[in-house]
């Protein structure tokens, strides 16, 4: 008999519920007048990020010596879900808070920690991720960007793609090949912190299908990185990245991307919805409620020191499926023509969510990759 998946119960500490109320009060003020917005982690707003930093809401779980606040992962979870449910513009500090900061905390040198973490926690230092390349998406081992040893440092040449907000960010965590491929194709890659304002970097916008500019192509030409900007162990980048990815699959951002559309749908359906609308809304909420409980459970297990990698993949797979279904359910219930510039909040949110929905199942591992991970967990691969 298998016991492959484990979703332990989790009880939120009282501190988390207190925090939840604080965050709601903060957002009520900050978001007053802003329209609903799906997928808020793509809205870049440094002012908002600095205010978050002032309140101690970036790097919340990090040690105080690095500007952190030593609060629990569950408190951070509550903060994030409140921000996302409200559609707050968290994009500026998002990556640094969620991925780059923890990476530096875990693998970085003391010098790196002291230099970067306090700035990140203040909401003033923004990171992006340089992993994907034109010919390597899901298959990271095939990256071609190369760093070659030279003058007590490394010289980088290559092109990174899909780097969100590179044009706004201060730094990038770059993954580059530092040794030739051998029989183990995952060896020989290294992570670096890269200053995007230094010479040798060219950032070209890549508009998305909605016409918005979040993505970039970042080209490195004979770009010099000093040795002290290596993150973690030389040639060990792939393992570090996998670690990073696995546990970032199950956060609240994996189920709340389209939540504001659900709220607008409920509003549009009114207090006495048709049987059809009531059933459809009830179904979506049953999914979201359950997903949230699963996601919280993974957060609790992470905090307890467990390694719920499979569970995280399950949450992401089910979560994006549900997120992508939301605009479909909404458009079928309300016969309207979606228009991003409509004055009607439902119609505008619907339009925006439709345009962004394809990206939900691309970022953080495609559906096929995730299901492959789950199948491996079942012992099939």
């Amino acid at each position, binding site marked *: 008999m298998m016991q492959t*998946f484990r979703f332990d119960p989790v009880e939120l500490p009282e501190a988390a519920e207190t925090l939840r109320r604080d965050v709601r009060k903060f957002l009520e003020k900050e978001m007053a007048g802003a329209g609903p917005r799906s997928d808020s982690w793509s809205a870049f707003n440094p002012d908002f990020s600095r205010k978050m930093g002032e309140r101690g809401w970036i790097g919340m779980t990090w040690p105080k010596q690095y500007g952190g606040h030593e609060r629990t992962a569950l408190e951070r979870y509550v903060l994030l*879900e409140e921000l996302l449910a409200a559609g707050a513009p968290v994009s500026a500090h998002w990556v640094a808070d969620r991925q780059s900061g923890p990476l530096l905390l875990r693998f970085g040198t003391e010098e790196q920690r002291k230099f970067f973490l306090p700035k990140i926690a203040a909401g003033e230092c923004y990171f992006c991720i340089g992993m994907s390349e034109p010919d390597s998406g899901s298959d990271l081992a095939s990256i071609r960007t190369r760093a070659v040893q030279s003058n007590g440092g490394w010289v980088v040449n290559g092109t990174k793609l899909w780097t969100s907000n590179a044009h706004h960010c201060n730094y990038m965590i770059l993954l580059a090949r530092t040794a030739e491929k051998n029989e183990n194709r995952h060896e020989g890659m290294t992570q670096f912190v890269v200053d995007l304002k230094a010479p040798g970097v060219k950032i070209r916008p890549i508009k998305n299908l909605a016409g918005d500019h979040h993505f970039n192509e970042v080209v490195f030409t004979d770009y010099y990185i000093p040795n002290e900007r290596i993150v973690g162990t030389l040639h060990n980048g792939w393992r570090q990245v996998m670690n990073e990815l696995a546990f970032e699959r199950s956060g609240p951002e994996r189920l709340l991307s389209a939540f504001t559309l659900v709220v*607008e749908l409920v509003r549009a359906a009114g207090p006495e919805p048709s049987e059809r609308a009531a059933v459809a809304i009830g179904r979506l909420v049953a999914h979201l409620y*359950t997903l949230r*409980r699963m996601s919280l459970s993974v957060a609790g297990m992470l905090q307890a020191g467990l390694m719920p990698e499979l569970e995280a993949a399950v949450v992401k797979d089910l979560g994006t499926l549900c997120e992508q279904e939301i605009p479909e359910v909404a458009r079928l219930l309300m016969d309207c023509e979606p228009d991003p510039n409509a004055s009607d909040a439902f119609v505008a949110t619907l339009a925006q969510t439709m345009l962004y929905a394809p990206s939900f199942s691309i970022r953080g591992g495609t559906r096929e990759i995730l299901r492959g991970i789950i199948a491996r967990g079942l012992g099939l691969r």
Partner: protein
Amino acid sequence: MSDARETRQLITDAAHRLFDQYVSREVQEKAEAGTWPGALWTALEEAGLTLAAVPEQFGGTGGAVGDELAVLRASGRYATPVPLAETMLAGWLLADAGLKVPLGPMSLAPTQRTDALSLAKTAAGWTLSGTAHRVPWGRSVQHVAVLAKAPGGNAVALVKAGAAKVESGANLAGEPRDSLVFNNVALAPDSVSKTGTTPDDLMQMGALMRAAQMTGALERILDLAVRYAGERSQFGRNIGKFQAVQQQLAVLAGQVAASGRAVESAYEQREQAGDLAFAAAVAKARVGEAASIGAGIAHQVHGAIGFTHEHMLHYSTRRLWSWRSEFGGDAYWQELIGRRIAKAGADKLWPLMTGTAG
């Protein structure tokens, strides 16, 4: 927290051992043909599993409600052909009304929203009238706990099953679903008690217990499908090596995981006296959907073999197809959730989901 987890595991292990011993293929077949699996029931009672969460002073084992979940999940996993959930449900209904709970298999009524049962006061006690349709295991149980309209409010009555006229019916799994006709059945004064429980409450608790059983059944069909995929060979390799099959089994595993968490969350709300109404509705709706997707995939992976009576799969899938419709189908609970949200208003959706108002 971790203590509770360990207790739960002990109970689960004990239940699995018991079912391994008593729920053989032969017992399954005979039960469906109408033979009461007496040894199984006796073993369950001796292990104190039939009334796991009923307080001791009312005749139960006095465990936590989580123990009930553990037992029901295990029983669902083994497609156990006895009214275990029904006995627990009757026990809950009786104890909650302050009535002493008897031993022996029990069922409950009404299970249909359209059924009307009524109690009338007489000089000697009470009389019960009305017809209860599709009472689970009606013909097999010793007692039925009946929630009926009484003068001045609802009351619960403990009724000997023999007092009713039985018309046999069944669900897709061949589990008895019988009509019980109560024709002025006389009841002693101490077998009736006023209750605050409404038919909706009973429906909700029934839905929760069915969801718990379904989760066990879903775990079982995942086991069976993964095992079969690792054994069955086509085109020179195990079918589990085909990416299309792997992707399907990953979907099934996801549905199983979601079901487990949905049901556990509802039991947590029950334990913490939280918003059980919301969480139980979510659980039955979510698990019902998982049952449809899951059973479809399990059969697709098993191919023709799984469509035979010889293979064990159908003992679980026929139950899933039945149980998803009992105590309200997915859509019934979805509508209930939807209407509650609509009434609360769009801006209360997130507070409702998080259980933190305002």
